[in-house]
């Protein structure tokens, strides 16, 4: 175990150091796109870590996790539109509503198993998606531009890109630490026991339902926070925020990075979104080399490369990228 940990720790430290240096690099090269990309990556990593708490550790495969991104985002957007800019109101309300929604979804869906659980969580997310589509006052399916980012009484300024980036990074690291403490606590043991063998958990005296429900709510709260950050990052909300494919992306991040570790989804979020950005360029480059000119249409087929990569990870590297790192050390 300890040998795994050192190899893993090295990657974790390197990744954190890299994320901390992104604004420095962006400032020296003037590459603002990189700042935008990595702010988004960090926010979605928070969402992926929260999903992995219930999916990787609790065995609850939620296919509707993007709903919390939407709820968090829409609370910020709607309050901003109604003239309430204060983050002291927006943020707690957004997080509380996400948790409340998770409580309702969990109370119903956790009575089912397997495919039914996946379908019910998806169904609830779709309900929220269509409700957002119907909110004509808030842009309907066109979405809504947020004029001002959340105000914190002049204490902090979220419009400062660098400050906002570091705030998101700090919240990501806090989330990872919190989840790490949690999965190793008594609560985490109960959750993982329920994933491993729920029947036996009941037999030795655990009322598993209530532990799973609370875990589900905690994941919802954290993902609601990610939604708040995402709305502040893009200054825009639309139903696309919680399109079902977004829930799929979050699952892919966790699977790709590794569901067995708390930090895995962070690696997965970076890997997936960086691939999403670089694969089209790579295709352009390859077509240039072989035909002498870049074939723009071919760039759209970047998912043809990503798909098989995911397949290979799922088939041959069960622990995702994190698992590969852990094994490379003693293999």
């Amino acid at each position, binding site marked *: 175990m300890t040998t795994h940990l050192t190899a893993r720790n090295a990657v974790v430290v390197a990744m954190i150091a890299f994320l901390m240096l992104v604004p420095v690099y962006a400032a020296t090269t003037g590459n603002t796109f990189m700042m935008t990309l990595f702010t988004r990556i960090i926010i979605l990593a928070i969402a992926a870590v929260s999903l992995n708490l219930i999916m990787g550790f609790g065995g609850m495969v939620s296919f509707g996790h993007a709903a919390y991104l939407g709820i968090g985002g829409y609370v910020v957007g709607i309050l901003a539109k109604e003239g309430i800019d204060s983050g002291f109101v927006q943020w707690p309300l957004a997080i509380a509503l996400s948790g409340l929604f998770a409580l309702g979804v969990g109370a119903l869906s956790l009575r089912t198993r397997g495919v039914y659980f996946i379908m019910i969580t998806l169904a609830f997310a779709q309900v929220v998606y269509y409700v957002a589509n119907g909110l004509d006052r808030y842009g309907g399916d066109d979405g809504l531009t947020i004029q001002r980012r959340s105000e914190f009484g002049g204490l902090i300024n979220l419009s400062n890109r660098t400050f906002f980036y570091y705030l998101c990074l700090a919240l990501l690291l806090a989330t990872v630490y919190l989840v790490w*403490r*949690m999965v*190793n*606590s*008594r*609560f*985490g*043991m*109960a959750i*993982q*026991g329920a994933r*491993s*063998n729920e*029947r*036996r*958990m*009941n*037999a*030795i*005296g*655990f*009322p*598993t339902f209530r*532990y799973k429900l*609370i875990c589900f709510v905690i994941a919802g709260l954290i993902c609601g926070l990610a939604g708040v950050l995402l709305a502040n990052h893009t200054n825009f909300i639309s139903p696309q925020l919680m399109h079902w494919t977004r829930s799929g992306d979050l699952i892919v991040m966790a699977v790709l990075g590794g569901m067995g570790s708390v930090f895995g989804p962070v690696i997965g979020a970076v890997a997936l979104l960086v691939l999403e950005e670089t694969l089209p360029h790579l295709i352009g480059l390859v077509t240039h080399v072989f035909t002498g000119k870049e074939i723009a249409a071919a760039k759209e087929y970047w998912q043809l490369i990503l798909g098989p990569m995911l397949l290979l990870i799922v088939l041959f590297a069960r622990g995702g990228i994190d698992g590969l790192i852990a094994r490379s050390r003693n293999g």
Partner: protein
Amino acid sequence: MAEPLLRVDGLTKRFGGVVASDDIMLDVSAGELHAIIGPNGAGKTTLIGQLQGEIAPNSGRIAFDGRDITALPVYDRSMLGLARSFQITSLFRDFTALDNVALAVQAHAGHSFRFWRNARAESELRDPARAALKRVGLEGRADVIVSSLSHGEQRQLEIAMALASRPRLLLLDEPMAGLGAEESARMVQTLRELKQELTILLIEHDMEAVFALADRITVLVYGRVIASGAPADIRANEEVRQAYLGEQEVVQAQGAGLGATHG
């Protein structure tokens, strides 16, 4: 006579047209080792399932220590002191042996809404878990992942987990299933030690073991209790011989006088 620790009264369970438990009456007194025997399909595991709470009976009543527990969920019965080991090994396969037992300890150490302290570093959980492993002879295998343990070791671990939940009544469902001669002997030794301080309800096919260990024996055939009494009485009971051993090869087991082989 004092109130028995477990009293089963008129327990009936039907699966479609099959009556798996047919008006079962059963008393288990505190301190005894009570064995239930019967041919395959007699409804022994169904009976244990109802006692533990996984299966709801159609009618009848189960009382534990004078309290009606017929409608109580599985985890509440565990809290009262009913522990079950499973016929088909049911463990947390991706955890270590020690983690498995520590979870059983944790279940009975207050609620688990504790989010911060490292549970694997809590001596309040680890020490009793180690003690339970030691009692079944697995102290040297504490840090091995369950899926890497041998079948015999997993059966021992089943017992350790049941022990760690501080039971007042241990329900053991064929603890010797699939064990080799040496492993069986080790299990009999473990059970002999446990019966000094625990009340045990034992389902077992190994007749030699049953007659060596049991204080009382109940014979179940097609869901019905056909006899109940001391081992000597059961051995002498003509109905038991006919019903239970009728079509099967009777083996004169030394020291037991009654034994049967099963496929």
